[in-house]
């Protein structure tokens, strides 16, 4: 079943790329069906464990698949986002786009179900390829494809090096899901930073983020939704299951550096989001800011902060995907993303405006939506860990978040109708269904965060929460 989980979207996507024809309905239907099937398989195979030997020298490596707690939520997020993104595809050439989305889903599913570091590294690099091709064929500038692949491949190489060194020293790479100080001694910092830099590139965090705004702005909205919502979490997931679980001493030793990088990302992303004129870039920089907060939470190793981080990872994925899909709708209708041009969607397309508003409010951290709970729990955790200054920075960034979200919405939703922009019909049923599940999930997790928070809390086998009473009920 687990193997089918990974292979189904990959085979379906490859087959789709080999077909001919551009029937939007058919491709969308198949794509959504595959994505929902993966969700069903993931639920059914949640407790499965599958392993086949791979290497015996120079270290033991297995094709070992399994679904951890955090991984399960990421898989659910991924399947949901993919289904929504596929449904939102409205290109004249849907075949390649849907095919690449399925390939992207398959490779990322592979990443999240890997229980072996080498397999993890394999999928970590493999998931770059579909995005690279989408950027090549549909990106706004060839430069964007370059930046994306070079940055991320360089990160992948460091991961490769760290994996090889880890394997040689530890004897096996079949370690995801286990815990303990696997590596110590003179090599530990090198290996840790190999992993950490790879993950920070992917997340991204300052100063390794420069590929990200261009990539997100250049990608077609459905792909940007999946990449921004889920692929960016691959790095954070790596921090959880590799850095925190296997080398907590190193995380503790370098927590200062990580916290500084996270804080800079947090503030810099928020400030940069305030001055962007491209709506997608606002979301891109906000992502830098929000994920910086998660990096800080990870660096503190505070159980509460980690629990909040796990929830926020899911919440951020949901509202980022919803926003990118929504902005894609705006771009299809108005043929621009420039905040200097857009006005008055609220008057023209009220349903679209409503959807965008809910997603934006989640991003801003409105109580009742999932983003709020995540931020609150993380900041509480940071305060508990004694980093008051960092908590202050985080709160400042939350205030800045209100500013840029409101600026985004004043720019797009409010104001008089601009007469030289086209007037198109409001959200269709299909478009509405493509964004509604994400918004509903945000609302559900906002009022019932225990679904993620309490269900074994976080996939860190090392640090079981002393008691679930530590988790506040918002």
């Amino acid at each position, binding site marked *: 079943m687990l193997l089918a989980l990974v292979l189904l979207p990959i085979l379906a996507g490859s087959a789709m790329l080999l077909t001919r024809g551009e029937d939007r309905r058919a491709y969308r239907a198949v794509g959504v069906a595959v994505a929902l099937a993966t969700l069903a398989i993931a639920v059914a195979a949640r407790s499965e464990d599958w392993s086949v030997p*791979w*290497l015996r*020298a*120079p*270290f033991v490596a297995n*094709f070992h698949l399994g679904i951890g707690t955090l991984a399960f939520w990421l898989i659910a997020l991924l399947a949901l986002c993919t289904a929504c993104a596929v449904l939102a595809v409205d290109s004249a050439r849907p075949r390649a786009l849907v095919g690449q989305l399925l390939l992207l889903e398959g490779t990322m599913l592979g990443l999240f179900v890997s229980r072996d570091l*080498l397999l993890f*590294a*394999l*999928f970590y*690099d*493999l998931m*770059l*390829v579909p995005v*690279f*091709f989408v950027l*090549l*064929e549909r990106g706004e500038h*060839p430069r964007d*494809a*370059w930046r994306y*692949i*070079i940055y991320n*491949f*360089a990160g992948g*190489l*460091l991961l*490769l*090096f760290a*994996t*090889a*060194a880890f*394997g*040689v020293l530890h004897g096996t790479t079949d370690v995801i899901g286990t815990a303990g100080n696997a590596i110590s001694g003179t090599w530990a910092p*090198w290996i840790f930073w190999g992993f950490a830099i790879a993950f920070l590139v992917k997340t991204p965090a300052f100063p390794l983020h420069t590929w990200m705004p261009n990539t997100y702005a250049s990608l077609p909205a459905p792909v940007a939704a999946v990449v921004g919502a889920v692929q960016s979490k691959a790095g954070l997931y790596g921090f959880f299951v590799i850095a925190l679980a296997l080398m907590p001493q190193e995380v503790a030793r370098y927590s200062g550096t990580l916290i500084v990088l996270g804080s800079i990302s947090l503030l810099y992303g928020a400030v940069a989001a305030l001055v962007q004129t491209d709506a997608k870039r606002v979301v891109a920089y906000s992502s830098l800011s929000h994920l910086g907060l998660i990096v800080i939470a990870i660096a503190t190793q505070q159980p509460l902060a980690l629990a909040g981080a796990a929830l926020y990872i899911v919440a951020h994925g949901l509202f980022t995907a919803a926003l990118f899909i929504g902005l894609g709708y705006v771009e299809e209708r108005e043929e621009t993303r420039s905040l200097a041009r857009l006005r008055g969607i609220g008057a023209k397309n009220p349903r679209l405006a409503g959807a965008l508003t809910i997603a934006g409010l989640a991003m801003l951290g409105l109580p009742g939506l999932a983003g709020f709970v995540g931020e609150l729990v993380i900041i509480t955790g940071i305060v508990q860990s004694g980093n008051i200054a960092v908590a202050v920075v985080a709160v400042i960034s939350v205030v800045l978040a209100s500013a840029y979200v409101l600026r985004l919405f004043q720019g797009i939703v409010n104001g008089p109708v601009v007469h030289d922009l086209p007037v198109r019909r409001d959200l269709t049923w299909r478009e509405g269904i493509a964004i509604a599940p994400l918004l509903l999930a945000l609302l559900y997790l906002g009022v019932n965060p225990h679904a993620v928070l309490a269900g074994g809390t976080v996939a860190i086998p090392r640090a079981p929460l002393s008691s679930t009473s530590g988790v506040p009920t918002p």
Partner: protein
Amino acid sequence: MTLPFTHVDWAAIAPLEVLAATGLLVLLLDLVLRPFAPRALSLGIAILGTIATAVMIGQQYGTNVAAFNGGYIVGNFSVLFGGVVLLGTLGALALMGRGGRDRESAGTIALLLWSACGALLLAGASTTMTVFLGIELLSLSLYCLCGLADRASAREAALKYLLLSSTASAVLLFGMALLFGASGSVALSALATPAMVGNPLFWMGSGFFLIGIAFKLSLVPFHAWAPDVYEGAPLPITAFMTVVTKAATIAIFARFAYAALPSGASQMLLLPVWIVAGISMIVGNVGMLAQHDLKRLLGYSGIAQVGYILAALAGTTRVGLGYAFFYLAVYAVMNLGAFAVAAALSSGDAEEGTKLETYRGLGARRPLLAAAMTFFLLALAGLPPTAGFLGKILILAATAGSGYLWLAALLLVGTAISLYAYAKIIMAMYRPDHRVRVAEAVRSAPLPWVSLALCLVATIAFTFYPLLPTGLLPLVK
């Protein structure tokens, strides 16, 4: 009168005999049957002969025979490197369906087979005499083959290769002479005695020997000939050289490094080689960036890839040898695959498939070929799910495991640069491009497609079922 060699000796080199006889048979049949489609016949016989040779070599797996007084050692090492040599030969033969004149095809094929004989000899050679014999047999045939195409660059390539390679042979020979002076024996194993450490002749001889090898392997700073020669030579010959020459020369280097050096001197003596390997990774990959010809580009790529393979040998560990061989085999497969795509796009002597201009917009015109090329280029760069990825991680494990961290770092930097160069071609293939259509073969020959498909399958299969060789050592008896 008694013959100096017994039937055991002759049986040990039976595969070479078959391969050489195949070459003769091709020539003879061509003489008789010239009016009747000789090219297809010659190719068929050559391919069958090569496969037969491969089977015979395969049967030697697990044996350990020192033939010709230790001049040629049959063992797993010679079997595996011989296998790569024959793989490269088959890959090159598969590309020979087009190009060149029909009446020359038999001669070309025969020369190619004899060149492969030289390479096979090198895989088992363990005295300086057999090493030199193998290198000359390999090179002499290649000098002719390089100049076959009817263009100025081919003549330049042949002459350049002749001059530079002869110089390298001379340096190698001088080194061998000094080594003989030091040990009083032509056997490589005779050098592995502690007495050699204090012997200046040994140091000088080894130095010259290694310089000669570096020349043949086109390591920096002796690399400049390779791209020029590869560009000038016909496509199948270039494919042959990138794989077979490298495999044979690496076999010699490995045998020298593992079996001929006294333990006290080994690491100090080989350190310059590792340094040169590290520089080659950078120079080769940077050199790729400016190329407009696929053969030149793969020539530079080869310089870097040899660097990777040598990096696995750094520290001369037992596991490193296995990984070096694994990566060599993987490199052979993915490289031959890229050449097969180029051949499928070529209609003959014009070799359209070697000009990077041809790849513009290929993704729209020939989606399957473009996808295959993308796959092989990503494999060369080391992206999953190709065996290039697994090969790189194994090399990293070996290099880091033996303490050569700086070499691992250079490998990472070089690989990152290389992706830029490979992705440039991929980009040209998939960016929508509405410029004038470029010339390319409309109907492809079937053999390159077969070769391409086999390489593709092998490149994926090696990732998930890595056949890591064991029992390569000892290299001398």
